């Protein structure tokens, strides 16, 4: 519990001094909230997900068998013939195997399960799956990342690569390494997914956000995770 922020720091300093998680850009107070599991409000969702997992998923999946799963998502789905995010995988399992209705995007049930599963891989490096079929989708994600959008005519890269570390109003612009999702955002006063964050950023540059679960958001998520490969997973993180 006390060790992993130190590990995070060492890993960040040693291997990739130029790449930093959003954790490094936060105030010490917000960092303290994330570093202590008994203060981190995201654990309310993790605990909720654990109960849902035990009730519905434990018939097939043993507890703890999800360690190592989250760092390699989004991953290829052979049936759909395209990459799917972890939350989409949970919903596919819900439809294909549990034979139930899928959870709504950003519902507490889905976020709880995703947070519980991803939390088991905390501290493990993000690992892009070595799958050649993903390559065109990574390229699509990269294209979207560098494409100017919205009335403000800004691309993700302009802020999060060229101006990272500088300030936008009162907040520091992070490097857009999504290593802590789903995470508790103080602004939301709730846990939210990476897609919620991406949609909010698109609203910020006054562009029409892509729908939850759309191929575009999945491609962006895929590119961002490949871009963050090797960085340790922080789920559930806290962000301002």
């Amino acid at each position, binding site marked *: 519990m006390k060790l992993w922020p130190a590990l995070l720091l060492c890993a960040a300093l040693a291997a990739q001094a130029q790449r930093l998680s959003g954790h490094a850009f936060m105030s010490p107070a917000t960092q303290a909230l994330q570093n202590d599991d008994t203060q981190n*409000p995201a654990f*309310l969702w993790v605990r*909720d997900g654990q109960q849902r997992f035990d009730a519905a998923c434990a018939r097939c999946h043993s507890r703890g068998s999800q360690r190592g799963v989250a760092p390699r998502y989004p991953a290829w789905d052979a049936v759909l013939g395209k990459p799917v995010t972890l939350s989409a995988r949970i919903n596919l399992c819900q439809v294909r195997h549990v034979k139930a209705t899928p959870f709504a995007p950003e519902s507490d049930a889905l976020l709880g399960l995703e947070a519980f599963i991803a939390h088991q891989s905390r501290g493990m490096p993000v690992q892009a799956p070595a799958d050649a079929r993903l390559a065109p989708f990574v390229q699509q994600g990269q294209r979207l990342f560098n494409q100017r959008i919205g009335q403000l005519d800004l691309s993700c890269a302009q802020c999060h690569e060229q101006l990272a570390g500088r300030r936008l109003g009162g907040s520091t612009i992070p490097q857009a390494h999504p290593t802590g999702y789903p995470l508790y955002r103080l602004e939301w006063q709730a846990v939210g997914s990476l897609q919620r964050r991406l949609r909010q950023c698109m609203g910020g540059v006054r562009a029409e956000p892509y729908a939850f679960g759309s191929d575009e958001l999945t491609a962006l998520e895929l590119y961002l995770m490949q871009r963050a490969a090797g960085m340790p997973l922080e789920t559930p993180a806290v962000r301002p």
Partner: protein
Amino acid sequence: MATLRTILTAPASARVGEVVEIRTLAQHPMETGYRRSSEGELLPRDLLRRVECRFDGELVFAADLHAAISANPYLAFQLKLPRSGTLSVSWAGDRGVAHSESVQISAT
């Protein structure tokens, strides 16, 4: 009526007379009653009103919560442990919300 999701953190054991920290976290929207929805309707007030902590039935900490306290309120306080016993925290609020969680602390 409704229950809450809560996390109560206390040391499982401590020395008699030791000052221990008790941490509580409750999942709650803490809706003020002053905000409006995107359709312009007033969102009804939904607050946790009272948090009480009892050690073997004796009240050791209590707090009245009001609007402008953030969602998912976190409360921490310190307690001088008199003996082994059961620490019980109860939350109560609007819409008939009532929930309690307890933990056993053994003092040596």
